């Protein structure tokens, strides 16, 4: 008995060590991608230029480009990648469905609807401060996301909630929110309409330090919370009956996790718009790497999500340069085939 315990403990530490190594390796990859991406774009900077500018001896124009445009933008990409990736993992844990993507089941469009309505209403009042609007956007998006999540939950409720009903109801609500969104957009002035349109297709090209500061607190608060709750997700993975047997108050914990997931997804949506499939692909790739245990999965998902966003953003800047493609489109074009592949191979 003791032997076996030691053995499994040994395996556990070995796996943890492997996870830590993998985590560090991925963080290294992320840093490299970050540097490469700093140089890429319409104006290409060499690595030497980047280095010079970073230590403060570059030209003024390079400093402006890096510190005012590229670095905040890349930081936003990293934060959004973390937020959406982890949110996806949480949703898949709650619904026990590996195909639950916050974008497909309507969380994004719910947040989007509230944000666009908010932008419309604030544009009616003269003298509202832009930075004030910017900082309140994640809250507005959060309210929208929670509304969407609750609607999905309530509408899917019929003496209990099954994963199948949850997803179908989510898809339906997504269509409804998108239709309402279009109606609100049409009420807007031309400039606001364009602003909303660019934002909605998932874009971070005008990300500034303001966007970084408005998103950072959300990630800093909710990422540790997710890690703290990861054990409960792991229990839920065993199936609800088992979880009940183990004494976890499933429904309450589920609800808390739902709020955490929505918070991370909605804050990311508020800054970067609706980027679909990121919350699906990042957790899946990570599951391939470290398996389904949430304590290991969440940190890896965060880094993988960040890498995916940085790579997609680099592509968005360079593919059709000097024109910018909204990064959400790149993620969709890469993510949708992966999703379809999953759909074909997954067991019911």
């Amino acid at each position, binding site marked *: 008995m003791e032997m076996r315990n030691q053995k499994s403990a040994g395996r556990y530490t070995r796996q943890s060590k492997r996870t830590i190594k993998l985590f560090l390796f991925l963080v290294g990859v992320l840093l490299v991608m970050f540097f490469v991406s700093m140089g890429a774009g319409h104006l290409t900077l060499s690595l030497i230029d980047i280095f010079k500018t970073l230590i403060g001896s570059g030209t003024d124009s390079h400093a402006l480009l890096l510190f005012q445009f590229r670095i905040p933008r890349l930081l936003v990409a990293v934060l959004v990648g973390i937020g959406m990736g982890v949110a996806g993992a949480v949703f898949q844990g709650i619904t026990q469905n590996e195909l639950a993507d916050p974008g497909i089941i309507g969380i994004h469009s719910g947040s989007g609807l509230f944000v666009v309505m908010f932008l419309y209403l604030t544009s009616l009042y003269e003298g509202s401060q832009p930075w004030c609007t910017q900082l309140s956007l994640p809250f507005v998006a959060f309210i929208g996301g929670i509304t969407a999540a609750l609607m999905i939950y309530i*509408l899917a409720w019929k003496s209990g909630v099954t994963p199948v009903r949850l*997803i179908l109801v989510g898809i339906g609500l997504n269509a409804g929110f998108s239709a309402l969104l*279009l109606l609100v957009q049409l009420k807007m002035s031309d400039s606001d309409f364009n602003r909303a349109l660019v934002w909605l297709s998932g874009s971070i090209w005008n990300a500034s330090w303001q966007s970084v500061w408005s998103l950072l607190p959300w990630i800093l608060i909710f990422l540790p919370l997710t890690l703290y709750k990861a054990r409960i997700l792991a229990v839920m993975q065993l199936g609800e009956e088992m979880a009940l047997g183990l004494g976890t108050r499933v429904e309450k914990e589920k609800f808390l996790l739902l709020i955490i997931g929505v918070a991370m997804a909605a804050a990311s949506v508020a800054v970067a718009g609706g980027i*679909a499939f990121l919350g699906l692909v990042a957790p899946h790739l990570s599951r391939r790497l470290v398996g389904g245990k949430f304590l290991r999965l969440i940190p890896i998902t965060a880094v993988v999500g960040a890498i995916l966003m940085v790579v997609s953003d680099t592509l968005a800047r360079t593919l*059709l340069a000097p024109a910018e493609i909204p990064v959400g489109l790149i993620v969709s074009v890469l993510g*949708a085939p992966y999703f379809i592949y999953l*759909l074909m191979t997954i067991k*019911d």
Partner: protein
Amino acid sequence: MMDEIRRKQLTDKDIQKRLMRRLSHSHPTAWIFFTSGVILFLLMLLSLRFGAAELTWEMIGEAIWNFDATDTAHVILVDLRIPRVLAAAVVGASLAVSGVIMQALTLNPLASPSIMGVTSGSAFMIALGFALFPQLSHYQLIFWSFTGAALGAGMVFSIGFFTQRGLTPVKLALAGSAVSALLQSLSTMIAIHFDVARDMSFWYAGGVAGVRIESVTVIALIGIIGLFASLTLSRSLTILSLGEEMARGLGLRIGWIKLISLLIVLVLTGAAVSIAGAVGFIGLVIPHMTKKIVGLDYRWVLPISALFGASLLVLADIGARVINPPYETPVGTLTALIGVPFFLFLARKGGRGWK
């Protein structure tokens, strides 16, 4: 019935006929057909009258009996309103009939043009067409739209083909969403790169405003041919909708029937999307409603769905004009607002249909 078959040694044709008789509702279905035809006609008349410029019934009558090209009201009626209402009717009918056929073929209650990726496929190919050949004529537009419809449907169908144990309603809905998301992203990229976003934005909203009579006649012709072609298949569709084994047992050539019906679906939706853009949910809601009212006899389900679909889109198009005049509300959002609650209703049943 099985005893009867054994006793009388019935042929396949006889059994098919008896089956059809059993499936027809006892309702006087012909009356439903007639009433819905009258409703459609009245809605079309209303649609001629209401809009940014209010016309009176006398003006409409006068414009039809003795047309005066210098009278603005007459010109509005003949050049704008009539093509528009005809287009709405044809598009609505085509989408509804496509939905009926798709649901019968796949035995999947969520099957419909917008969910199966047909609409976004069309929009994608139209974007490509605009990008490569900026001066597309009506006919070319319809052609690109067909190929796109085939592309979208082909993608979703092949996902179903390569999926173990086929597509359940949930997987179909997910596959459709994924294919639509992919194609939409690609079309937006094309639109940005080739600077045709202005031409394209219309397709996502959907609508029949500003339709010209030349394109309506082409679409109407295609729609009528498609509808009659589907009617010749109606008996086979009825039997097919009961399950493939039953159909095979009764001597139906399933492969051919599926191929021909699929072609009809592609032609009808391709034509509809080429003129009206993404108008969702008609192909989902109307077939279910019609089957609930009429029963499962597709000889009635098909024509009555066509009339219902046409009525719904004509009504939605009136709504599009009067909700926020003088601005147009996109018809696609109106049909979505009607369709989403219905979709949710089906979803609550786990996508198992309205029984």
